[in-house]
């Protein structure tokens, strides 16, 4: 008995060991293979590592609490603040619908990345101050564990606005407002201007205002990517597709004055999947219209503006596509490292780009000369005829320059007063806007996202009061207009 048991034990011993070593060997082998395969996959993938950017083409979910139309900087900022301010964590399901994940036509990545506080509307100054604080602390706001910190490449070179004699008084008033809000802006006489920036021709300039701090330009692509990375880590869902339809219910109501109104509520968003005829309905409670230059069209899909003219129902979202050109030129004798973002009384602007005496700039065409926004082709004659003459007049060194490249992008142009539209629609009760910023949407995005999230979650603005940016101003005819200094 004992012997056989011993034998058995002995016999099992080596056998067991044999088996286990064998198994151990195979695991080792297998692990090595797996790691080889992993390496292979990693090397094949663009960027070398798994990149969430390329993994978002799956179908949208069947329902989400908040659907954000447009994944540009404004849409992502709203998503970020919704997740940041939600209580408890993970309470709301946010879906961002973006039709083009390469952002080939999105304004965000085609902008020139400027940020300034030199506005005349106090709300704009506040929005911009909040945003610059956000950008400065971007690695506190948008830090993702295990990912490298962001470098938004901020150039703190300031904005230099020039005013003619006619505009000088307005400029002085504007600077008063800016200083009251806490911006560090100083006024300069032509004499001081010549001393500081000898390359400027001060002819026709009566006064200049110059931002000493917190103004300049940064890399919009980096902000966009940082927001994407962060919101993804916070659990925001992405899908690639186009919002083509809203399914809504409506109630007829009568106002106190006896006027009949049609209150609407969106229940479903139809998302057309990229490159197919299929669409997927997404049930939702709230829709955020952050479709940038296309937000007017998205509003129309929800029936906004389809009513008798002059009524609230017939009031459109006045946001249109407006094509703007940006030119990049080289000028060996051009202004140096100290060059700020200069805006001429004529509206022509330029700034330095990098270290190699390259500059970029442009100007807005007059209302009559607005180019056809059907495509993003660049009109090079526009530079020759409109931009260059004013540039060379202001900075004589620019008389000899060479245009290196150019591109065009769309302003999300608000034809009513060129300012943002923020907050809910008075009739389509669950559609909120974050659009219409017409050329300053990038710099205000961090603050606007927060304002919209506050509106959605709390029902009112908390950090910055943006009541004057509500949709109802289009019906009431109350313009919030920047007082330009031209």
């Amino acid at each position, binding site marked *: 008995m004992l012997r056989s048991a011993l034998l058995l034990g002995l016999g099992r011993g080596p056998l067991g060991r044999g088996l286990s070593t064998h198994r151990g060997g195979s695991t080792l082998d297998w692990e090595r293979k797996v790691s080889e395969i992993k390496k292979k996959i990693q090397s094949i993938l663009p960027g070398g590592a798994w990149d969430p950017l390329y993994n978002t083409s799956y179908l949208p979910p069947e329902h989400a609490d908040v659907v954000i139309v447009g994944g540009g900087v404004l849409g992502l900022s709203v998503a970020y603040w919704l997740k940041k301010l939600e209580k408890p964590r993970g309470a709301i399901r946010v879906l961002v619908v973006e039709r083009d994940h390469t952002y080939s036509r999105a304004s965000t990545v085609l902008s020139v990345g400027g940020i300034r506080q030199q506005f005349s509307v106090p709300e704009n100054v506040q929005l911009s101050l909040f945003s610059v604080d956000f950008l400065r602390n971007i690695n506190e706001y948008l830090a993702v564990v295990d990912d490298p910190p962001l470098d938004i490449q901020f150039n*703190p070179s300031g904005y230099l606005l020039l005013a003619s004699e006619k505009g000088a008084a307005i400029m002085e008033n504007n600077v008063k407002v800016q200083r009251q809000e806490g911006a560090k802006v100083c006024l300069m006489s032509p004499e001081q201007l010549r001393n500081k920036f000898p390359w400027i021709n001060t002819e026709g300039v009566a006064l200049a205002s110059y931002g000493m701090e917190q103004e300049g330009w940064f890399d919009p692509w980096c902000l966009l990517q940082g927001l994407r990375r962060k919101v993804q880590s916070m659990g925001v869902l992405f899908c690639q597709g186009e919002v083509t339809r809203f399914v809504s219910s409506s109630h007829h109501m009568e106002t106190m004055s006896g006027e009949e109104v049609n209150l609407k509520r969106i229940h479903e968003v139809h998302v057309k999947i990229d490159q197919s005829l299929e669409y997927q309905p997404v049930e939702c409670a709230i829709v955020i219209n952050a479709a940038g230059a296309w937000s007017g069209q998205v509003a129309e899909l929800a029936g906004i503006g389809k009513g008798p003219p002059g009524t609230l129902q017939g009031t459109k979202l006045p946001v249109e596509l407006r094509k703007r050109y940006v030119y990049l030129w080289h000028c060996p004798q051009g202004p140096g490292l100290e060059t700020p973002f200069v805006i001429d009384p004529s509206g022509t602007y330029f700034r330095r780009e990098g270290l190699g005496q390259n500059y970029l700039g442009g100007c807005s065409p007059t209302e009559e000369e607005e180019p056809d926004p059907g495509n993003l082709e660049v009109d090079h004659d526009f530079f020759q005829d409109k931009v260059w003459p004013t540039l060379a007049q202001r900075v004589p060194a620019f008389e000899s320059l060479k245009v290196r490249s150019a591109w065009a992008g769309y302003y999300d142009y608000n034809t009513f007063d060129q300012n943002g539209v923020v907050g809910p629609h008075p009739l389509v009760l669950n559609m909120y806007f974050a659009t219409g910023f017409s050329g300053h949407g990038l710099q205000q995005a961090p603050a606007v996202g927060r304002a919209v999230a506050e509106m959605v979650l709390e029902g009112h603005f908390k950090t910055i009061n943006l009541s004057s940016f509500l949709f109802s101003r289009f019906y009431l005819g109350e313009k919030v207009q920047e007082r330009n200094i031209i």
Partner: protein
Amino acid sequence: MAAPRASLHLVARVWNGGTRGIRGPSRVLAPEGNQKEGRSLLRFLADRFHDVEVLRDYLLRKQVMKVNQKNRPFIYIKQRYGPYVAGAYFILKQGGAVRFQGKEWIRPNQRGHFSLDFLKLQAVPVEAVDASGCAINYQGLDSLLALKELQSLWLQHCPHVDDWCLSRLHPLASSLQELSLAGCPRISERGLACLHHLWNLRRLDISDLPAVSNPGLTRILVEEMLPNCEVLGADWAQGLKLGPEEQSRDPASPMPA
């Protein structure tokens, strides 16, 4: 014992990652592989357990908070003793050195202690500050900017001094004559561009800035921008560079003359 080590593993260092000149705690740590394993385990846990993720998030935030805490202004001292003493106290607390007008350098000893004799120098302006290697950041500059007569400022190897900080130096324009930014890991040509405000500058050290993409060209452009200023660039200072420690032991001159 385990706690501080664990916290080092838990989060990637936010600011100091990949920079030279800062002796981050990770170098003292066990071999690289070990650390990686620890991190990937935590990453694994974080992917699966919400709590671990929240904890790591919190720790990341705490790192930042610690730096911010160090940069709080001493409001009481400022009210009681005025801006010069408050500024000096702030710098000394951070481990830097100060010199009041016509006086000797004051600097903390090895254990961070310093004599409070300078509290009586309320009316004497501070003319030189050596904050090399200190944790001073954008917010902490408030205390420095109150020193209106400051002539010399050394900010060598400061891990938290960045381009945003440089854009804040303009209030010192009329007094500041000497500025050293050598070895600051986060300063790039973008921040250097705003030094044109400092028209009184006679001497500027911008050597050994790893974030500057093109040091040679940048130096030339800075020289053009500040024609009355001697600019020390990368090549010039290579052989002369002193670590922040060596400097602080030499009380007479905080920078090679």
